[in-house]
């Protein structure tokens, strides 16, 4: 159990897909102008990555290495299409808001990477948790960016105004420039955080 927790945890901080691995950066900017779209995108990716990890792990003995990549892509594309169809049917507004980026989940490097690196070499349960952890890391990262951008750029979170009227929202935050700069500093912050954690770990090791 401890092990599974570790697999999960690693995806959230130490190997955070966005801030540390720098994979799948596009959605981190494109859909994070508000918290709600960030969350939806996060959950969609989490679902795709977990489901795909499970599928890949289940079929890992059956797939011919020569067509491994195309097969994985087929699998991902299927799952994404499912998500698309479902969202379209049951949450059309969100489907609209995510726009083309929903379709682009197919090519988010993080998903293929987890399939190749982890799921194709591990059994179902760890793969599931790996997917969940990576997905959670991705979701949290998106949510963090989304909340900050929405808060500073529109004065609200999830559409609910939280800062008073005195605050004149800085539009830059919900525009490309602000998004880039914010993520730049968040990446820096994460670097300090992981370094700090590593140091703390090392100290613990010493004692």
């Amino acid at each position, binding site marked *: 159990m401890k092990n599974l927790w570790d697999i999960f945890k690693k995806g959230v901080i130490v190997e955070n897909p966005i801030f540390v691995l720098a994979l799948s950066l596009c959605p981190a900017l494109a859909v994070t102008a508000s918290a709600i779209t960030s969350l939806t995108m996060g959950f969609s990716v989490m679902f795709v990555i977990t489901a795909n990890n499970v599928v890949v792990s289940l079929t890992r003995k059956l797939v*011919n290495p020569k067509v491994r990549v195309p097969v994985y892509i087929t*699998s991902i594309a*299927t799952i994404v299409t*499912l998500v698309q169809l479902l969202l379209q049917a049951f949450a059309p507004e969100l489907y609209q808001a995510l726009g083309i980026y929903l379709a682009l989940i197919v090519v988010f490097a993080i998903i293929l990477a987890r399939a190749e690196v982890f799921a194709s070499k591990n059994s179902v349960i760890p793969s599931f948790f790996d997917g969940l952890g990576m997905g959670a890391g991705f979701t949290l990262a998106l949510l963090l960016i989304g909340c900050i951008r929405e808060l500073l750029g529109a004065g609200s979170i999830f559409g609910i105004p939280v800062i008073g009227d005195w605050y004149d929202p800085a539009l830059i935050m919900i525009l490309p420039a602000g998004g880039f700069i914010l993520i730049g500093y968040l990446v820096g912050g994460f670097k300090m955080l992981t370094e700090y954690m590593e140091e703390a770990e090392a100290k613990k090791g010493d004692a």
Partner: protein
Amino acid sequence: MTEEHGTQHYSIFQIAINLAIACFISGAIIAVTYFFTAPITRQNAENTKTEMMQKLVADSDKFIPVEGKTDWFIANKNGAAIAYVIPADTKGYGGTIKMLVAISPEGTEIDYQILSANETPGLGDSVAKDAFKEQFHGKRAEAMVVTKDPTNTENIQAITGATISSRAVTAGVKEAETEVMEYLEAQN
């Protein structure tokens, strides 16, 4: 996994079949899902459209498609046409603004809805807000001119910092009105 690379060889057919099977399964799954969601999606789309039109022309009880015009609807109340709901496209600050405009048979504006737009949040997207919309109600095509003079109530007050978007929407509504009037004239 690793040792397979150098050593094993597969026939072309084997490899192809492998991918084909994967695609087959995938196709099957998608097909099943689509089979179930398609009707819901279609229904949803219908609903949203009527809902939107209903919002534009609240007291209408029926929307009838106009023959010969795609996506034109006549809003009926008790069998009488009380409005024409027609789509309009216009070029805004960040790209095309798509809207749905309701025009009374007299040629005055009733209301409009922005369907899709890429205007700047906080600036251009205020054209979807009621404060701006209300200015249009009951106005005729001749009055559809953007002004920056705060005392002018005849025309349409531009949103500060988003004159371009304001102009675009105004132009769109104006065009819709003219089109409806032309259509009605042609009918008569």
